[in-house]
């Protein structure tokens, strides 16, 4: 009865297979091949690529570097975005102007902005070091020292994506009901306590969503690293995605980079699932 209902599912199923499943299954197949610049094609190589990647310390370093970069930048973006949203939430002078101004970085093209930031960070020609010299902080080797280069990537990421947090959290703030704030005042909660007892719990669900979206996005970071530091100096800013890009499209080790990609995908799915569950437990359900 009603067997033809499956017929209606068919177009969606075909699209799903073509767009998501086929590339995924094909990449899995490639990861078991020895496809490289000398042996193009799907020659079966077994688990050789996977054995190799477990011994590839450069990959695991890049992965942990990526984790550090993603978590730290997203957390800073969240704090800054929240602060900016709180600033222009209530009746402040020219709040419409500031609301638009804070969104500008998100509207720019990441690659182009990275080029501009590379110029800003340039140690002898860029405007940043003379400025730091002028205010007695002193210029820094932004792109030639491992620590400062990592900081530079973080700064660009934070600058570019804080507006996204700002936008989501401002939308959340504007949708908060006013009644609990009245109750909090009557119940003896001052502004700081009201923030932690009313505002923050009110935005818990939207915060989890915003943090997860940004973590997913940040874990794919490639363009900023590519333009700004090319993973250097040395491997100081090399992230997992950038390393996979090097192995696949610079060294043309397609089979190996496919194995790296699949491993990276599985790790990301597991990690983000755990993070999502923890955030829901502690931020959304555990508010009391």
């Amino acid at each position, binding site marked *: 009865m009603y067997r033809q209902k499956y017929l209606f599912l068919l177009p969606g199923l075909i699209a799903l297979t073509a767009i998501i499943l086929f590339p995924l299954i094909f990449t899995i197949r490639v990861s078991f091949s020895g496809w490289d610049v000398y042996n193009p094609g799907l020659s079966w190589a077994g688990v050789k690529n996977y054995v190799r990647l477990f011994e590839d310390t450069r990959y695991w370093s890049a992965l942990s570097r990526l984790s550090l970069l993603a978590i730290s930048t997203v957390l800073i973006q969240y704090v800054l975005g929240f602060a900016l949203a709180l600033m222009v939430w209530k009746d402040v002078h020219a709040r419409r102007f500031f609301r638009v101004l804070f969104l500008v970085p998100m509207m720019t093209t990441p690659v182009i902005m990275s080029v501009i930031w590379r110029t800003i960070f340039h140690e002898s020609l860029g405007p940043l070091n003379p400025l730091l010299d002028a205010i007695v902080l002193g210029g820094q080797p932004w792109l030639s020292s491992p620590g400062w280069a990592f900081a530079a990537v973080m700064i660009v990421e934070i600058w570019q994506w804080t507006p996204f947090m700002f936008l989501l959290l401002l939308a959340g703030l504007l949708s908060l009901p006013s009644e609990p704030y009245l109750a909090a005042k009557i119940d003896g909660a001052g502004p700081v306590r009201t923030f932690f007892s009313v505002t923050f719990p009110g935005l818990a669900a939207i915060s989890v969503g915003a943090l997860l979206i940004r973590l997913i996005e940040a874990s794919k970071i490639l363009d900023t690293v590519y333009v700004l530091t090319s993973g250097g100096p040395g491997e100081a800013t090399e992230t997992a995605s950038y390393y996979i890009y090097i192995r696949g499209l610079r060294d043309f080790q397609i089979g190996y980079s496919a194995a790296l990609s699949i491993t990276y995908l599985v790790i990301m799915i597991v990690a983000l699932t755990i993070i999502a569950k923890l955030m829901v437990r502690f931020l959304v359900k555990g508010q*009391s």
Partner: protein
Amino acid sequence: MLDLHNLRLAENGVPHLDSITASFAPGTLTTILGRTGAGKTSLLRAIAGLAIPDAGEIRLDGADWRRLPPWKRPIAMVTQQFINYPHLPVLDNVAFPLVRRGEKWPAARDAARAMLDKVGLAAMVDRRPSQLSGGQQQRVAIARALVKKAPVLLLDEPFVNLDYKLREGLREELVEMLRTETGTTVLYASTEPREALQLGDRIMLMAEGRLLDAGDPRAIFERPATLEAAQVVNAPPINIVPLEIDTVARMGPFGTQELGALGRDLAPGRYRLGLRAGDIAPGGPHRARVILTEVSGSETVTHLDLAGLPLVMHEKSVVAHAPGSEIGISARLDRGFVFAANGALISQGASHG
């Protein structure tokens, strides 16, 4: 003692509070009675610190509250809206003000549980407010206000958004609970004269931000000082009939009437006669057109047009007068109130109540 002195508050040039001076003794329940827009909510908000008066003083036992933010005032408040914390379970909603006051969560939860038991929500402690009915949500808000045992309790039409039966039941429960709260100054804002007469030790009448009268509810109902006070304290609203006295008393569409004791000492001139809706009855010589009939519970309020004079008739039974039809009515004119041109009461009929 809660003292208000010359309290003034205006928004966009519209006075919400106009020179309010009043005192509220501890352990008393004062009903602030007034129509919508009379300034009741503004008064409670000013006392709570949610609205900043333009002038005047608010003092509790001599302590000046002018610079005290709302969260530092020893008050509790229940509003018309069912205000709770949506993300907290019912138990923590009620415990929250105690924690803010410095109590530990376990002790605060114990006190909250006891209060929720009193308001009949012992079985709902783990639910979120959104999982409760409107009446239950308002019980949570009431429990949160009572658990604080604040010296000043402000109730701003707390039951206005509930249905009639629930309103009656909750009001009785609240009065019962407030009896045990000795020493609390309770201010209860209401638009319903009947509620004010049932509840308060004291009544305070307000209109357009002004304090019209204050005192014993029964005495004010029996003898309103002004026409404005009579309009506020009567529901359905009091009828106003033009009255002209020379050699006889002429009363608009009611014609020439014998006022008896009511008009004995009145000098010739123009007056206004206030006539309660209950003193107009169906059956009589005056033909009035029915505009609208409202049935509430087992009572009927009929809006009439008597030769251009709008009248309201209140019957203690369910009657269906067809709109547009004409009915005969009679008026107990001897039970009326005579007001001077400036609105002051100068004479009233016998046996009110």
